[in-house]
Structures are given as structure tokens and as C-alpha cells.
């Protein structure tokens, strides 16, 4: 495969990681704990969309190779993921009187409950959206890029969602309050911001984006109860690289981590791809270690610059 094709793949995968890492970062900064249930929130979104799509099916016209019914399923998946997260916040997290580590451990329990319920209903196997596979886009083939319209749909939808979030954060009252709360919860509270409401909105937005990420991940690969948990550490790596608590950092971190993850196959033949480097040069490492590389980058970032790319100085 050509480098361009790996880059294209990386762009698609990055879109998914960006969506999920924004949500994780938002919750980290406002609810103030590392939410280990975030990955399984993605799974919740994916399965909800799967069920919804089963009902509405091939409804409506096709957009980017996807029936309109799929976009309806996406919206339902996002809504249910957000609703489940808010319910969890109300029932589980809010009554807790423990610190951030206690919340972290509790969120692992929440993750297991989500996953167990999904497994009870759907089993542990893999399933897929019943959407026929597309042929790669003809116009891109001469450049050595095999990319389907579905991939374009993923990248496009992610771009729309990210742009929407940017607008929300910068130009709306809610966005201003969210930024204030993330920055300094106590000051926000004494300034008259009802931070508990902001917290609920954070869960809605964060989990909603995670749900969207889960649906796209299901479209990109396939759907299984472990999909969210398997990708959770990659998302954490993106958030840490970008800087915990920074939405824009999460975007950059998600983009970079997704790219690095997908570009791993190039490492053994670096010499052939980069000019001015001997042909034989390469890092002998297989794609099976793509995630391992990402995790090592995460640890390295924590060591060298725990505040990440865009984060403030670590507290």
C-alpha cells in the first residue's frame, strides 16, 4: 500500500479518535476524573445505532453511500449514549462522596455494567451494519488511495461535529460557561454559574460525541461488546498527548495518535519512503504493535510533558 493510502486511513481513524477524545477530555476537565467507562459509552452508541438501523433500515435516499436511515440511527445512538451517561451521572457518580480516584474506580464498574448488559442482549460476537460494501472511489485510485464513500462520510461527519462543538464553545453562552467551569470550578460557582447544570451538559456533549465515535468505529471496522474498551487506551493516549482538559488539545492529540496508529506499517520500510535516507533503513516492528507504540508514546508524554501539547501546567 502507498503512503498516501496509509495517510488516508489515518485520517479516517483519526476522525473517530478525535470524536471520542474530545468527550473524554471534556469530562476529565469538568467532572474531574479519568472516566474509564468512556470506551463502553462508545459501544452503547454503536449498538443503539445498530438496533435502530435494523428498524429503519434502508430508509430514504443515499448520501455518501449511506442510506438516510443510517444518519437517523447515528442520531439515536448519540442521544441514547448521552442519556445513559446523564443517568449514570445522576444515579452513580453524583451521590458518591469520594475523591477522583474513587470515581475512577467506580467508572470501571460502570464500564463493566454497560458491557455486561450489551453482552447479555447481543452475545460476545462481532456484528456489522447491514450496509453493502462500496468499491473504492475511482477518482482517487490513480493516486494509490483506496478510499470508499463511507470513509469520506466518517471524516465529513466528524468535521461537522467538531466544527459545531467549536462554535458552541466559542460563540454561545453555554460554551462560555463550560470553559469557565473547566478553567476554575470554584470561581465559576461564585460567579453565579450553576456548575451542576454545566456538568450535565458536559456529560451530554462528551457522551454524545463518544456515541458518534462508536457508531463510526462500528462502520469502519465492525461492532463487538469489547470495541470501546479496546480503543479506550488509544483515546486516553490522544487526550494525554493533547493535554488533559483541553478540547482543542484533544483534537490535535486525537489526530496525531490516529495517524501514528495507522502509519505503523511504514516503519519497517522507512528508508524506501523518505528521501536522503538509506534504502535499507527501517524500524523492524510489526503492525501488531501499533497500539503498543501508542501506549509508549502516552507514557513518554506523561514523563516529559504531562501537560501535553495544549494543556496548562500540570497541577
Amino acid at each position, binding site marked *: 500500500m502507498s503512503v498516501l493510502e496509509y495517510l488516508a486511513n489515518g485520517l479516517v481513524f483519526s476522525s473517530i479518535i478525535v470524536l471520542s477524545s474530545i468527550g473524554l477530555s471534556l469530562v476529565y476537565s469538568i467532572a474531574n476524573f*479519568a472516566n474509564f467507562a468512556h470506551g463502553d459509552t462508545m459501544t452503547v452508541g454503536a449498538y443503539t445505532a445498530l438496533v435502530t438501523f435494523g428498524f429503519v433500515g434502508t430508509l430514504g435516499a443515499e448520501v455518501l453511500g449511506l442510506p438516510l436511515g443510517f444518519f437517523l440511527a447515528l442520531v439515536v445512538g448519540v442521544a441514547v449514549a448521552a442519556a445513559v451517561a446523564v443517568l449514570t451521572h445522576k444515579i452513580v457518580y453524583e451521590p458518591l462522596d*469520594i475523591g*477522583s*480516584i474513587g470515581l475512577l474506580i*467506580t467508572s470501571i*464498574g*460502570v464500564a463493566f*455494567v454497560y458491557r*455486561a448488559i450489551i*453482552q447479555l442482549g447481543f452475545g460476545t460476537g462481532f456484528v456489522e451494519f447491514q450496509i453493502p460494501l462500496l468499491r473504492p472511489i475511482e477518482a482517487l485510485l490513480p493516486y494509490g488511495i483506496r478510499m470508499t464513500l463511507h470513509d469520506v462520510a466518517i471524516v465529513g461527519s466528524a468535521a461537522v461535529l467538531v466544527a459545531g462543538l467549536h462554535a458552541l464553545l466559542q460563540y454561545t453562552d453555554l460554551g462560555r460557561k463550560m470553559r469557565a467551569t473547566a478553567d476554575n470550578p470554584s470561581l465559576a460557582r461564585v460567579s453565579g454559574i450553576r456548575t451542576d447544570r454545566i456538568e450535565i451538559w458536559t456529560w451530554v456533549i462528551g457522551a454524545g460525541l463518544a456515541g458518534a465515535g462508536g457508531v463510526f468505529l462500528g462502520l469502519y471496522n465492525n461492532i463487538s461488546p469489547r470495541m470501546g474498551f479496546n480503543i479506550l487506551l488509544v483515546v486516553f493516549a490522544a487526550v494525554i498527548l493533547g493535554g488533559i482538559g483541553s478540547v482543542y488539545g484533544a483534537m490535535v492529540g486525537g489526530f496525531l495518535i490516529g495517524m501514528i496508529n495507522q502509519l505503523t506499517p511504514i516503519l519497517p520500510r522507512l528508508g524506501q519512503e523518505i528521501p536522503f535516507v538509506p534504502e535499507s533503513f527501517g524500524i523492524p516492528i510489526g503492525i501488531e504493535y501499533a497500539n503498543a507504540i501508542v501506549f509508549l508514546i502516552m507514557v513518554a508524554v506523561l514523563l516529559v510533558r504531562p501537560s501535553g501539547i495544549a494543556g496548562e501546567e500540570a497541577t
Partner: protein
Amino acid sequence: MSAVDAARGRFADLTRAEQGVVGFVVLLAALLLFGLVTGGLAPTYFLYLVGLVGMYVLLSFGLNVQWGYTGLINFSVAAFFGIGAYGTALLTADNSPIGADGWQFSLAGVELVWVSGARLYGLLPLTVLGLLVAVALAAVVAVAIGIPTLRLRADYLAIASLGLAEVVRLLFLNQRGVTNGSAGLRGLPGFFDGWPVLGTLPQTLPGVQVHEVAVPGLGSTRLLGFTLGAPFWQALLNVGLVLAMVAVVFAVLRRVHRSPWGRVLRTIRSDEDLAEALGKDTYAFKMQSFVLGSVIMALAGVFYAHLNLFVSPGNLEPINTFYVWIAVILGGSGSNRGAIFGGFVVIAIREGTRFLGEVLPASFPLDLPLVTSTYATVVNNFASTRLLAVGLLIILVMRFRPQGVLPPQRELIWPASVAASAGPGETDPRETVTEDAAAGAPETGSDSDAEPDDPAARNGGEDDE
């Protein structure tokens, strides 16, 4: 009669939580005994379960040193367990790519160590070498993981250790030339194979046929009908091994926990800055605690490898880490008695769900439209209730009893000092300690451990600044 009174007195002496735990243990033992007597539970399988309980107790001890004593939030338990299991399996398994057949170490032409069959010739059984290698490997990896991560903030340490554990798992999964990949290693010998007497003991012990149980005065009934043969003695030997491991580790940890070294660990857990201010090299103490805990986990892995006779990368799955976390936080962080209790509960969840899944009828007895289909799906995927139970248990413990069922109250005090302070006219020292711990009074050194979220609270406080 007096023995009954004494037992009753001791029972009344316990805290309510302790009474509950005693009740649970008695109930569980009665259930198992019932299963044994009625023949529903094969004795060999029962002993296998006891072995697994012992293994989880060991793992919980290890995590207790790290999280319970020192407050290190380590999510790489499964990795160290796997390193222990693979450490010994790589040396002893039949299909190990780097097996011990024809192994030699020689220095300047002089053969120092050579392997013959299951024994290092003339020196020590191969399984003992496997244990030593596993423990050494775990210690090295613990240092390697500890160097970068132990300086990190608590929640970063959690994420980083989980990530590094995954790196370890991927290595075991993909380095086929060394670890045999996803096929795993099989054909391991039992731990005592090749030992002088114990190695052949199960085969030489006579098979016992149990047919009738005689109750004096009530006559005899035919209750049991099984033969206790070599597999049974083998299983008994395994249980003996794990009990010995648990006893030794328990004794060491009890000593360690109350020692000056253990007190420093507890200080680090409740207030790391204070420990620094007192001139302690907290990083060094954390590292020592991390290595000690990891070595104990590896010990559990070694036992498991020789119990199960098969290891695979599946043993390094993160879910195993969280089973151990359940055992520790449920039992009470920092409490070794609690860790033992937690080990029992984990096995009760793991095996109880398996048992229930087999016992439940395949279809719902009543024909209701939605219920029947839901019931069918749930029963088909019943293994998932295990995950559900684990998840709910974590949430409920954190919500209603974050200090765990058996918080370490008196474990932290030398018995002698308790006896000394209990002068006439004073209240029962135990009561005092309990109340202090509950109220969070700062005078006694013990209560700093009573709340598992101490470092968390401290951390949250920092974040607010």
C-alpha cells in the same frame, strides 16, 4: 460447654462487619460441604477451587502492598501474574520454544548448570528454577515499569500502568518465537514433579474408596460414592503448596505492615508531602513497595501455571486485574484479612455464575411474549452475568462502603501495645480504635488507612488550588 461460650464470647467481640464475614464464610463452607456430601461437587474440583482462592488471595496481597499500603494505583496486576506464569512455563512447558531440554550454562569450559529431564542435574528441581526465574523476571519488569510511572500523579499512574500492561500482553501474544503466541504453552509439569519424595507421592498413596459414612449412634448411610485416587492427592498437594505460599506471604506482610518501613508506606499513602518533609525518599519507598507487590503477584502466577498446566496470553487480559481490584477494595484496602475474604468472593462470583448458568432451566417456565425471549438471550449469554456482578459490586462498594468490609483496624497495631494500653477502668481498646477510625481522628497512626480514598482526596484538594 465452655468452649461454646468462649466461641460465643469471641464472636460477640467482633465488629459487625467481622460477624457478617464470619457468617458468610460459614455459609459458604456449609454450602461446599453440602455439595461434597451429596456428591454434587467432586472433591478434586473442590480442591482446585480452593487452589484458585489461594491464588487470588496471593494476588490480592500483592495489590494490597501497592494500593492498600502505599496508595499506588496499579492496573497491571494481570501483567505481573502473566509474567510469573510465563516465567516458569517457558522453562518447563513441553512446547516451550526456549524449553529447558539440553540447556547448559558453562563458564571457561566448566559446566556449571545442566538440565536432565525435569531436574537441574543434581542441583534442584526445574520447577524451583522456574519459580526463581519468574520472580526475578517480575522484579526486573517491576523496576522497568516503576522507573517511568511511579513519579506520576495517581490517575496518570492508573492509565500508564494499564497501557504498559497491554504492551506486555502484546509482547507475549506476538513474540511467537519466544512465547508460542496465542497458542500458549502447555504440558507443564506439576510443581512437585521431579522432587525427591513429593514428586511421586500422589501415585504411591493408596486410592481410598469412600462408600459409607457412619454417624455414631445414628447408624451408617451410603452418602458418598467416589474414589480418592492420584488426581485427588495431586490436588491436595497443590492446595498445600498455595496454603504454604499464602501463609508465608501473610506472615511477612503482617510483620512488614507494622514495621517502620510499613509505617512510611502508610504515611506516603495518606500524605506524600508529609513523608517528603520527614526526609523520606518516597520514590525509593514506592519502588520497593511496587517490586514487593509485583513479586507476590508473580508468585501467584507461578502457582497458577503449575495448577492449570497451561498458560496463554489470555491470562494477561485486563479483566483479571479488575478481579483482584474487587477483592482488595471489597475486603478493605490495606487489610490482609480483607484480601483473604476478597479472594473467596471473587471465586464465588467466577464459579457461582458458571454454576447458576448450568442450573437454570433453558427456557422460561411461563409463556409470556417478551419475558420468554429476554430470558432466553440472558441464559444463552449467562457468562456475562459475571461481568455484571463485578461491575455492580465495584459500584456498590464505592457507594456504600468505600473503606471495604474489613478495614485494617487492629492489623496495624502490635498486639503488645494494645494489651499495654488496656488498663483497668479504660474502655476496650478495640472499641476505641474502631471509633477513632470511623471518626477519622488523627491521633492514632492506624486510622490514616481506614479510608481508601485518602490519596484521592488529597489529589482532589491539589487540583482545586
